[in-house]
């Protein structure tokens, strides 16, 4: 058996295989639910209801999607230029640390006007965290998959140290968490009485801006050219290293906004459980969206829905929440295979 490329995949092929992947995901999820001793259809129904069955559920899903949109955008941006940023988790925490430092500072004097400054500070932190690995890559050819991945552990240990030491909340009853942000420096709710905060709005604006950058600006053109064929890009005079550095700054900044938005919009303080792997899940979000910035919004909401829905289903049906992770893993694998099958034909012999 081998694969033969298809020059012009038909529309039926381009849509049929991803659709089949979704159906197969549902079937496999049903089998898993049955394995856990629950009624498969009821379980799936509970997941959908838990994710989108009520206004409260839907807003919860959008809240959960917010950091995933940011990390998904960060990864989609980097991967587009074939910069393999696996360190969105580290950049998220970098953004969160700066948010807490600035958010508990004298900046509260200027009220909500301080928020853009904090967001900017967080982005700078995230960008700087990715700058090291990308410089090592462009100067010495060090594999950024390794360096960015290692930064995740470094940052987690740094946060752990900060929360036990200099940034520990003196009023925190000994829990490893930071002092809360000043009330004036929290992201406001989108509407009174709704749990959804403006971090979601910022995420939508970011996605639109990234889409604009990729399709309408010279920087986006350069990033795509470098990602598709760095040799031809270099020959044509595109400064490949500089483009990779710019991509890294943008990507790191976006991931850091996830940290900013979670701290300033949702939690109000920094703790070690700020991110249940948003940086890694962002990879799934970006890949499912085929690295399209607007697609990231949709897949982030989809992925968040599975998590939120599974949480609620688990409480109701007694099926472990791990089913959410398995569902996502299955969905990703099948989608990757489906995308491959839209471009290649399997030939026997």
């Amino acid at each position, binding site marked *: 058996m081998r694969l033969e490329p298809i020059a012009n995949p038909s529309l039926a092929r381009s849509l049929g295989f991803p659709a089949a992947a979704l159906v197969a995901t549902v079937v496999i999820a049903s089998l898993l639910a049955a394995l856990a001793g629950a009624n498969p259809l009821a379980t799936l129904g509970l997941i959908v209801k838990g994710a989108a069955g009520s206004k409260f559920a839907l807003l919860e899903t959008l809240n959960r999607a917010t950091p995933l949109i940011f990390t998904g955008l960060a990864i989609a941006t980097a991967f587009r230029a074939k910069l393999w940023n696996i360190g969105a988790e580290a950049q998220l925490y970098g953004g969160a640390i700066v948010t807490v430092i600035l958010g508990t500072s004298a900046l509260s004097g200027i009220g909500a006007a301080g928020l853009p400054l904090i967001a900017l500070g967080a982005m700078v932190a995230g960008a700087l965290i990715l700058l090291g690995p990308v410089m090592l890559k462009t100067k010495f050819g060090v594999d950024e998959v390794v360096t960015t991945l290692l930064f995740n552990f470094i940052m987690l240990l740094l946060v752990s140290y900060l929360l036990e030491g200099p940034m520990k909340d003196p009023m925190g009853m000994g829990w490893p968490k930071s002092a809360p942000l000043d009330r004036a420096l929290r992201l406001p709710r989108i509407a009174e009485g709704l749990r959804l905060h403006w971090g979601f709005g910022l995420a939508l604006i970011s996605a639109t801006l990234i889409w604009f950058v990729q399709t309408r600006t010279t920087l986006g053109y350069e990033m795509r050219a470098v990602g598709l064929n760095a040799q031809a890009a270099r020959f044509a005079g595109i400064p490949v290293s500089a483009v990779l550095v710019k991509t890294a700054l943008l990507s790191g900044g976006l991931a850091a906004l996830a940290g900013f938005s979670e701290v300033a919009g949702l939690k109000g303080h920094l703790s070690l459980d700020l991110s249940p792997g948003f940086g890694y899940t962002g990879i799934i979000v970006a890949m499912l969206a085929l690295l399209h910035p607007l697609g990231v919004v949709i897949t982030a909401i989809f992925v968040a829905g599975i998590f939120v829905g599974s949480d609620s289903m688990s409480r109701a049906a007694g099926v472990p929440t791990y089913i959410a992770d398995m569902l996502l893993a299955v969905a990703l694998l099948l989608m990757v295979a489906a995308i491959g099958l839209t471009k290649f034909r399997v*030939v026997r*012999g």
Partner: protein
Amino acid sequence: MTPAHPKAQDVVLRLDTITKRFGPLVANDAISLTLHRGEVIALLGENGAGKTTLMNILFGQYTADAGEVTVFGHPLPPGNPAAALAAGLGMVHQHFTLADNLSVLDNIQLGTVPLWRMGLGRRTARAKLAKLAADFGLSIDPDALVGSLAVGERQRVEILKALYRDARILILDEPTAVLTPQESDALFDTLRRAIKTGLSVIFISHKLHEVMALSSRVLVLRHGKLVGEVATRDTDRHALAALMVGAEVPPPSVAPQNPGPALLTLRDVSTRNIGAAPGLKSVSLSLRAGQITGLAGVSGNGQAALSDLISGLTTPQSGAVEMPNLPDIWSPRGAISAGIARIPEDRHKTGSIADFSLTENAILETYAQAPFSRNGLLNWAAADAHTRHLIATNDVRCPGPSAPIRQLSGGNMQKLILGRVLEASPKIILANQPVRGLDIGAITYVHKRLLAARDAGAAVLLISEDLDEIMALSDVIHVVSEGRLSPEFARGRLTAAELGLWMAGIGFAHAA
């Protein structure tokens, strides 16, 4: 060597009406051939005639649309390289498939040791290799790193690799393209020994004298069709050349022209080696206005180093680049801004981005300038209009400006690249193998554009491994060998044979 009347049972390989289409292009059109035991047949044809496609079908890299391959009387399953190897076919590719960081013995054993066997069977392998080397006169140190070997030695490793796998039919794809004449002679000796042991050889080439020297039968391919099959002793070079090109293509008429001032001068320039290919060794060269400077040479003798330097990809280690408006920083962008049009050797990997549209490819060098962008914002309407203009003026056959460029044939792709770099009437043109793999129509077009640019006063550097192309187009010729540059020869001063001596490195004042 060949039996006068080869008997039917001597047939070791039979191709029967093999046909392969790539879209509208018929790469192989009902080609049939037979190969007998102990026979050398030559497959002759120009670039793009379908030789390599035919061999790729034989080896299972492609599946034929129609036709059948029979090896030693058994049909060969299509599209299965492993079956081809097992049937006794061995191929020596034009571009070697060796691992530089492994020893000769490792390279030869690679892929022959079953996954589940403990140990490598080194002693047996070493003995078998030593016997093969002695039998065929292919002396080689089995423990040498392949990366440290010269090109001719690497080819020996490739041949030994095929023989080690008990190949009974050896296929050599343009084996002398990278060899000096002396190395070629040694190769021919080896092959003559090999056929005495009953090996059969298919020899792919477009060099007539080699074909005449080695083969017993010649098959000529043209545009995918088998246009002639003759016994070597019944033909001569002129007849073969006529068969190969078909209707005599008149060489482009090149009116002599008085050269203008030097627009680009290299003074004692040396550059780093590129992998196994040598860098430039103290090269001095002047490209003058209104003149085509031809660079002849065997592949891998410094052409890439010179091309990379003028393209702006590399800077000299020593020596100087001089031109009227030399950019501050010598880089691809610096070279472009200095008015150098660059037609790269590999139009797929270097000259274009396959998944980019024609429009995106058309502005690859100019996207950062008005009207294609202002303040970092792209103007796709302007880019599209420009691309439509290039498509129309260069006769690029394509579905439209938004189609990905990978859908285009090599000729149309090259026409777009040509349009892209020649649109601004550049003063200096670097054309590295500009017609390799193109059909006659596209070749004529490319040559016409280069000559027109020369007549308009551009300085053209034409790099080609095709000596006929160099001799037909160039006003002056340099030969490059192991990174050294010969003196300048005016048009017609040296014959092809004399240039061949220079290509072999004979005549250079200093050693490499």
